[in-house]
């Protein structure tokens, strides 16, 4: 802070600090706090409320009718009863229009077993996507960083980036067309005579979770390749040669020299891919067309926009956030990298 003041003066420093604080507040703290708050209460709506009010009104009608036939003390007593009933009605009506909120962990603890299964399944799938993406991307990243000539590396990187200029949805639709019943792959298989469109013996790729995996990996490869590429790129080529010169196999060179060096990149790549796939809504939605079970992200969407149950939705979302935080912590432990390395 003092450093900043010394280099930029008080005015600019104030601007920096305000902007940073604003950014933290608006982009990180506020939405999460909002989610958390929403997830912690429910509206305690009484199903019997309408009936109770109706009954009170009919009681009131009877009493008011009786009121005309009563005299003296009796009349005053009844009048009091009428007044108190009116007050009760007003209270009930207020409850109906503005039901009370009850704080607690109900939204988290009351997840149905079906939803919980989906929750776990989504996490497992996202983990599998992450591992598959790592297996696919590490060799690519290494090749671009260390084996390709600089011109070819630039070309390869460009080739990887260009598809990302297209909207994510369109990229997913492309895979849809490839894997569809009468899509590219099946057409090819039909051409080979392995399947036939007439008797619908095509391979229903889209009904397998695998198709979602493929599309997810495709959608998020860059987030895995780039961090790994960036770290591998900084590895001194002489280290590879030294390892080779000392007799190490390719596998040992990678295991002992390249991977330890690329750890921060691998951790970042895994974290990004995991978070993006566990929270991805459009990819499973488009790829499965609802034909092979929901992903958790779709469940959350439903809570918000179909059941209008924002509190449960918020609780589900926040659970996902917690899972992601947990994943980050685990990655940091496993790869023995600190926040600093990851931030790089």
């Amino acid at each position, binding site marked *: 802070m003092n450093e900043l003041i010394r280099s930029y003066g008080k005015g600019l420093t104030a601007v920096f600090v305000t902007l940073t604080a604003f950014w933290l507040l608006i982009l990180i703290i506020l939405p999460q706090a909002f989610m958390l708050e929403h997830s912690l209460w429910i509206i305690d709506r009484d199903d019997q409320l309408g009936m109770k009010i109706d009954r009170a009104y009919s009681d009131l009608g009877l009493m008011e009718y009786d009121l005309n036939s009563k005299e003296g003390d009796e009349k005053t007593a009844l009048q009091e009863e009428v007044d108190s009933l009116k007050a009760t009605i007003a209270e009930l009506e207020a409850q109906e229009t503005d039901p009370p909120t009850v704080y607690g962990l109900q939204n988290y603890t009351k997840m149905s077993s079906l939803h919980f299964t989906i929750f776990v399944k989504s996490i497992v799938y996202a983990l599998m996507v992450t591992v598959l993406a790592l297996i696919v991307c590490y060799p690519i990243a290494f090749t671009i960083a260390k084996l390709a000539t600089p011109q070819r590396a630039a070309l390869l990187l460009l080739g990887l980036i260009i598809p990302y200029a297209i909207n994510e949805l369109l990229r997913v639709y492309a895979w849809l067309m490839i894997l569809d019943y009468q899509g590219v792959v099946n057409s090819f298989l039909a051409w080979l005579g392995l399947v036939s469109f007439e008797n619908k013996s095509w391979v229903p790729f889209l009904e397998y979770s695998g198709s979602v995996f493929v599309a997810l990996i495709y959608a998020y490869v860059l987030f895995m390749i780039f961090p790994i590429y960036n770290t591998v790129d900084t590895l001194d080529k002489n280290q590879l040669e030294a390892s080779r010169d*000392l007799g190490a196999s390719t596998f040992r060179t990678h295991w002992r020299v390249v991977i330890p060096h690329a750890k921060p990149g691998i951790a970042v790549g895994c974290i990004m891919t995991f978070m993006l796939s566990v929270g991805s809504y459009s990819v499973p939605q488009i790829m499965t067309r609802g034909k092979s079970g929901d992903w958790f992200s779709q469940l959350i969407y439903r809570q918000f926009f179909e059941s209008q149950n924002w509190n449960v939705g918020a609780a589900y979302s926040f659970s996902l956030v917690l899972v992601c935080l947990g994943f980050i912590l685990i990655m940091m432990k496993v790869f023995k990298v600190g926040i600093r390395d990851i931030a790089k």
Partner: protein
Amino acid sequence: MRGKDVRLEDVVMRFGDFTAVQKTSLKINAGEFFSVLGPSGCGKTTILRMVSGFIEPTEGSVFIGEDNMRGLGPARRPTALIFQNLALFPLMSNWENVAFGLEARGIDRKTRRNRAFELLALVGLQGHEEKTPAELSGGQKQRVAIARALAVEPAVLLLDEPLSALDLKLRQYMRAELKEIQRKTGVTFIFITHDQGEALTMSDRIAVMKAGVVEQVDTVDNIYANPKTPFVATFVGENNVLQGKVAQADKEYAVVETSQGPLRGLNQDGLSAGETAMLFVRPERTVLVNGVIPDNSFEAHFERRDLEGAYVNLFFKTDAGPFIVHEANRGRHGDLAGAAKVGFNAGDAIVMRPGEVDNE
């Protein structure tokens, strides 16, 4: 003695249509300290990489001992390379660095750990085994790199300018250290450098290279005393150059007609009268003429004097270019001004066919 000899037979290395190393044959003896000396970009590293197996020569063969190395990768050659930037593994401890080659050979952890500790002790690094390279000084890192290379028991150790990153004091110290290790282990050292002083102090023999061509291979004494080409004459040590036409010549001596008059020197290339020639004479073989008149002498214009303590360098200007006299400091050069007479004996000068000289 563990070392093996290394032979390059008609080796050529081309990258595309650029020839980095012209046709070269070299024999490096077993257990020898052999230096490859040359300016930047002349192909020294390329030669080293052909011996270590990172590149295959376009033509010709490399032999180590009796074996032709063609087709063998760096892992399968009895060589170990010390890189210019050392290329230590920064995430491993020093002993793991040293043990890496043994690890790659499947030797169990305990054995390789013991061996690594022994080697680190050999290079004087006891107590630093568990540290990482980043925690060491430049000279210490150097030693780890040496220990790491020695761990795989190479017959030939290849060193690519390993001292260039060190400061002068440390460099001088490490030179002695390297010599000592070479003597103790008996491994053949092929040492690459562009520092002629380093090559002269450390080597048994030197190959001087220029632009992909090995100009001369000889013992250090011969390289210095009997350079075969103008480039070697000027790249290794200092030399005064005087150009002219041969006026008369016999088997032993030639007289060159220069702007400073006729000068006599050894007729090394067997030149005959009428040919153009270069005459070389080392500054320490020249004198300020004072009483005794040497074989050759002429007037030159005195410019300045650099004191080196025990010696002085006197700089003169002649029509043929600068001329330097290197003399013991006898305290009598202070009042030198204007013209002075300088000279040298014919036996100390070499007359050669003209060629490219090194002018840094």
